[in-house]
């Protein structure tokens, strides 16, 4: 008995019961479609979070004060004054694997233009901050290093600030706005970046030279934090190590003493966010896996009924020379054909519904090739696993009994 003949026999048998075959497949179809859709949604949200983090600058490194204890009390980073401008200069000059660095000082307050006002944050930075944070200027220009040196009262504003202040469609560039009573001349408008991963509006922002903010608004000489860009994402680790060495030297920290600063990269944020979405993906996959399992039980159920119903046919096949193995293979092939066909339809349906989710609900989706292969493999194994018992039962029938079966 060769395989082609067995395949023909199984196909003939399935052909005789198309509707029941379809109903049997339904469980598998729904199971596979669910697996693919769920994984597509899970992977999609993971990917979109990664992309959003990348827009914030995936090679960005943040340096904050911290880690220092005063009499056992750990103080909040904002209160600390340990980061100095000299630290920034040292890093900018000496640190390896970095492409750009900017100090950060920030203040929040009310911004006023004419009769409009809105609460926002002002960031004192250097011009290279725009590259580090992946901001682009849509209109006008960025302040220069000369503006930093002279503590010029110029600023670049985000789209949300534009929308809140310039309600009469005035051209913002060249206008003067007031932040905490200090006038700033708007010299540029930033391209919109939208919300970040945390849901914060990245366009509700004013950027000005850090020296201006330090002197005219905060009256401080230290800096709040620093933003550094590593030369590439892979160089982040090396860049962090370099920064740490420089800062420890700058701060005269002994070999066994704790850092009084924190250096963080986006990688940690990425892995934190990914672990959340990974958990969600696993959860969704579990639910979908259960439905696939139920589909498999459906196949077993129908195959079992089918064996009982076709007992006489099995008896006949045996009497005209089918061996137990032939009968076993016939039913096994039937089960595999059912589950694989169901799998193919399920894959198509799953990809289809993933695209429906994308287009109608506007959720991000991402269909990975391996999920398709995986669900396909699971289908075949389901077919073999759940088809085996009924097939074995058929193969073990006694031809005499089977022929007399009513």
């Amino acid at each position: 008995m060769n395989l082609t003949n067995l395949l023909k026999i199984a196909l003939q048998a399935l052909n005789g019961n198309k509707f029941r075959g379809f109903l049997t497949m339904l469980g598998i179809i729904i199971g596979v479609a669910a697996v693919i859709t769920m994984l597509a949604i899970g992977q999609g949200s993971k990917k979109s979070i990664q992309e959003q983090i990348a827009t914030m600058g995936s090679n960005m490194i943040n340096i904050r004060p911290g880690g220092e204890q005063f009499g056992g009390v750990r103080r909040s980073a904002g209160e600390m004054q340990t980061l100095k401008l000299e630290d920034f200069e040292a890093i900018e000059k000496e640190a390896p694997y970095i492409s750009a660095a900017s100090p950060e000082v920030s203040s929040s307050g009310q911004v006023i233009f004419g009769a409009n006002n809105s609460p926002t944050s002002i960031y004192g930075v250097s011009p290279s901050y725009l590259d580090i944070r992946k901001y682009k200027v849509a209109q006008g220009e960025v302040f220069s290093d000369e503006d930093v040196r002279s503590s010029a009262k110029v600023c670049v504003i985000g789209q949300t600030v534009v929308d809140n202040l310039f309600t009469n469609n005035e051209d913002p560039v060249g206008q003067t706005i007031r932040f905490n009573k200090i006038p700033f001349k708007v010299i540029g408008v930033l391209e919109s970046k939208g919300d970040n991963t945390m849901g914060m509006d990245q366009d509700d922002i004013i950027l000005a030279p850090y020296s201006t903010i330090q002197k005219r608004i905060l009256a401080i000489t230290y800096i709040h934090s620093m933003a550094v860009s590593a030369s590439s994402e892979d160089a982040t680790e090396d860049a962090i190590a370099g920064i740490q060495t420089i800062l420890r030297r700058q701060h005269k920290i002994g070999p066994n003493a704790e850092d009084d600063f924190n250096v963080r990269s986006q990688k940690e944020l990425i892995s934190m966010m990914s672990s959340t979405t990974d958990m969600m993906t696993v959860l969704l996959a579990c639910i979908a896996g259960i439905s696939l399992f139920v589909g498999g039980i459906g196949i077993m159920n129908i195959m079992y009924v089918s064996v009982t119903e076709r007992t006489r046919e099995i008896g006949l096949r045996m009497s005209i020379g089918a061996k137990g193995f032939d009968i076993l293979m016939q039913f096994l092939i039937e089960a595999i054909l059912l589950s694989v066909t169901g799998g193919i339809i399920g894959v198509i349906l799953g990809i289809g519904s993933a695209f429906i989710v994308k287009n109608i609900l506007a959720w991000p989706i991402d269909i990975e090739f391996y999920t398709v292969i995986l669900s396909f493999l699971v289908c075949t194994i389901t077919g073999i696993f759940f088809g085996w018992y009924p097939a074995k039962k058929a193969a073990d029938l006694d031809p005499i009994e089977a022929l007399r079966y009513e």
Partner: protein
Amino acid sequence: MRKEIIRIEDLKRDFVVGEETVHALRGVSFSICEGEFVTIMGTSGSGKSTLLNLIGCLDTPTQGEYYLDGISVKTMNKNQRATLRNRKIGFIFQSYNLLPKTTAVDNVQLPLMYNSDVSAKERRQRSIRALQLVGLGDRLQHKSNQMSGGQQQRVAIARALVNEPVIILADEATGNLDTRTSFEILTLLQRLNTEEGRTIIFVTHNPELAEYSSRNIVIRDGRIKSDTYNPSVRSAKETLDKLPKQD
């Protein structure tokens, strides 16, 4: 001397039902030669079904020897017997046992599907030839549920012929058919016996049919009650012609 197809020597078959042993066959011996048309008769419980199962290699004897076409069946395992059935025996059943919703050709070629020596092309040719032989050359693509009982039984006979068996075993082959159709089937079997030289064993409880066979074996209580040769075989075709025509 004609070739001996079947030789049975003191065949016994016991069944254990609960704690009791039922002796279905208590020692049967006979031989059947090529070209014979044998009817085996007996009431229900006489052991004729058990004998048929043994001859058909569906079962193995508790004791005694059985040679089919010179091969000892007694020591064969399940798979060997399946192959033997596939090559040497053609079965005809009371209830036809055709595959539902399947064309005549596909039904007939079924035994050859389990024989990997036969190619798909040859399988089809032999199936068509077998169907032509039973007078269904014009109904090759008819499905089994689109045919009358007589036609279905003809398909079943074609299926029994397609593997060129040394013996055809018919189990109450006319039991489900009306008188006229029964004689049509009987005529066909007689023709296959005389014209094609087929060896046929026909198991029935209908004593009338003994007149149409060349030899009649009667079984009672697991033993052969009589084994008689029929010198004047009646022609089923003549009986058929005498039957009132149906309209």
